[in-house]
């Protein structure tokens, strides 16, 4: 009998370890076993150990992310084209704001957000702009920005930052899919982030899907904004309201990529789910002279065009 109890304990602890490695919720059996006290006393209800998440305030997205943004570990945010970099940077900044706010609500001392942007990324898509980020809801007094020259330097700074408990989030912005940030490097950053209890947001600008150690990979696309509301409840026609992102969970536990339309409200500093515009399809007919976005290649060995590289070609029309 004692033998089976020991075996059972071993299996439960193994399942707990696996759950922790996979960043999942503890299985119900384990939770029940942990809650039960041999003395028959009810233990204090405590949070799941070993898993810290930040709820994004959008139930569907939180469910998909199993509670919210992982606060220990790497999350990848990518955009397909350089001109979408604004949307992806905005979404990353929104997550940074949420991290800042969560710390403030918990009564912890203010911790800065570190934004590491490889200089190529910022040259192509623009530097983060203090006034704009302030209007976006970010406390720019708690923002530290770094502009390293190479990807290697950026990785070094990110690794150094993840090993000190001083930042509430680290945003690492990389352009494309450099060889210097392959699977093993991303694994290393991920492990650092888990050990240092600092969330790492890998912002991959105009890169394609790549295997990485991140828990989740979110593709951020721009989406048309809603109109500005007027005091009487109607909408101001033709105006551009709060930013809206189309966030697609490319890598998650969901069987298929799921998309969400999220609106960031800088005043409330939170994300709201929004419905797709009903008139969008009707009001957006096919262009009169429809052409392929890319002319078919001719006269050279045809190669499938990789995703995310459709950037700067002139239109054929």
């Amino acid at each position, binding site marked *: 009998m004692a033998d089976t109890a020991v075996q059972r304990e071993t299996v439960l602890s193994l399942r707990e370890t696996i759950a922790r490695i996979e960043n999942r919720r503890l299985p119900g059996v384990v939770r029940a076993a942990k809650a039960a006290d041999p003395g028959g006393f009810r233990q204090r209800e405590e949070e799941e150990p070993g898993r810290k998440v930040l709820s994004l305030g959008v139930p569907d997205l939180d469910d998909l992310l199993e509670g919210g943004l992982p606060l220990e570990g790497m999350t990848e945010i990518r955009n397909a084209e*350089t*001109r*979408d*970099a*604004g*949307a992806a*940077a*905005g*979404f990353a900044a*929104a997550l940074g704001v949420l991290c800042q706010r969560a710390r403030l609500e918990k009564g912890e*001392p*203010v*911790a*800065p957000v570190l934004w590491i942007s490889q200089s190529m990324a910022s040259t192509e*898509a*623009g*530097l*983060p*702009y*203090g*006034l*704009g*980020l*302030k*209007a*976006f809801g970010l*406390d720019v*007094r708690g*923002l*530290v*920005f*770094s*502009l*390293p020259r190479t990807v290697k*330097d950026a990785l*070094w*700074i990110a690794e*150094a*930052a993840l090993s*000190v*408990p*001083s930042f509430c989030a680290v945003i690492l912005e990389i352009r494309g899919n450099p060889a210097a940030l392959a699977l093993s490097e991303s694994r290393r950053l991920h492990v650092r982030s888990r050990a240092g209890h600092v969330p790492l947001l890998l912002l991959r600008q105009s890169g394609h899907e790549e295997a990485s150690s991140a828990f989740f990979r979110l593709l951020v*696309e*721009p*989406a*048309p*904004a809603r109109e500005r509301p007027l005091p009487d409840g109607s909408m101001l026609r033709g105006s*551009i309201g709060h*930013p*809206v992102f*189309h966030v697609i969970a490319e890598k998650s536990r969901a069987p298929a990529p799921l998309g969400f339309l999220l609106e*960031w409200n*800088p*005043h409330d500093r939170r994300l709201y789910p929004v419905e797709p515009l009903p008139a969008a399809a009707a009001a*957006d007919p096919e262009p009169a002279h429809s052409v392929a976005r890319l002319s078919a290649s001719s006269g050279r060995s045809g190669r499938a065009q990789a995703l995310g590289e459709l*950037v*700067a*070609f*002139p*239109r054929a029309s």
Partner: protein
Amino acid sequence: MRLVALDGFAEKRGFHIGQGVAEARAMCPEIDVLPADPAADRALLAGLADWCCRYTPLVALDGDSGLFLDITGCAHLLGGEKALLDDLLARLFHLGVEARAAISSSAGLSWAVARFGSDDILAEDEAARALAPLPLAALRLPRETIETLGRVGLKQIGDILKAPRAPLARRFGATLLLRLDQALGREDEPLSPRLPVAALSVERRLGEPVQGEDDILGLAEELALRLKPELEKRGEGGRLFELLLFRVDGAVFRITAGTSSPLNDPRRVAGLFRERLQAVHEDLDAGFGFEILRLSVPKSEKYEVMQEDFSGTPDRERPLAAFADRVMARFGAESLMVPALSESHVPERAASFRPLTDLALIGKAEEPGNNIPAPLLAAAARPQRLFPSPEPVEAVAEVPEGPPRSFRWRRTLHRIARAEGPERIAGEWWLDGEPALERDYFRVEDDSGRRFWLFREGHYGASAPPRWFMHGVFA
């Protein structure tokens, strides 16, 4: 082509400076003439000045052929003046440098004796005796003055030592007496050292030179440990540390590392140099090893002693400071930046980045631009990413002041679905000084939902057509 410098052999053969090369060749066909390279000469002299830092931190350049070393209070460290001078000359001889030196109580006297005299160490009361037989050129006088003095038969310093001063000054100018007084020690002559002298420095002379990076760092930590009591006594922490490495063959390397907050912890000082050594790896050639290491603190600030509390919450400042120091030691002081807002209408001036100099300012800084009320910020939409220099676009817009209908940016056509604006921002003439063109900013959204910040510079109908620029992207 004329001769500008001679070696000992050439001097013996009777050549003189300023002689034509052709004439010299005619006198002695086998001479070797090298083209002068003043830049290399200066570099050599600067290198020697660095090397002389082993004797005293006060080293001043004298023209392009000499060095002044102020050894006040340093001689006893090396076993007295005689030992110092012998050591200096012997080492320079082994480096292949022909040098003459003299020690005396005034810079002018040392200069004269080293170049024209035979003594090497002069006591304070021997100045007149040593100077008397020397030629007047030993007084650092202009050539015309020496020639004028020569014409009236005054060739040696002894000739003017006893002469009445007033007629000399009247006839040959004040410089003559000034130089004479400086040489005799009656007039003070300040030396301007090449480099500022650090407030604190400790050094270690090694019997056996070290080459390995770990050895250097270990010694640096040991030096920092010796530095700590001194810093504590002053209640200060270093903001800038300098490690001098004297290589056995005479090369001297200076490695400086700044910190983001006053620091006196030896391990962290050594950690700073670990990153610096990584950064300067290619430039630092250990060669046959380093024989002297010196750690100095050129810049220090008041150090706030903090007591650990019992709550157990880790102090936020210290790990952050350690991180900032590591990054800045490796990638330079500009590698970490914080946003700086300023009260300006021009978007690129209103917000910029400045280097992170003081960690205490994070989260607390009250910038002038931070006082902008929130409603104003909300009303004036600003992009989340701004291009440092606006990129020109081709736009089709309503004439005269309407928003653009479509534009081509980076060779891609964007059709505009909605637009807000214009927001007119005029140039800041009080800064730019020239009539800068007004900009009309539009916030536009294209048909796939991307939001951009475009502006038109100039007006339709003006003499020059207006130009459109892309200045930023919104989230």
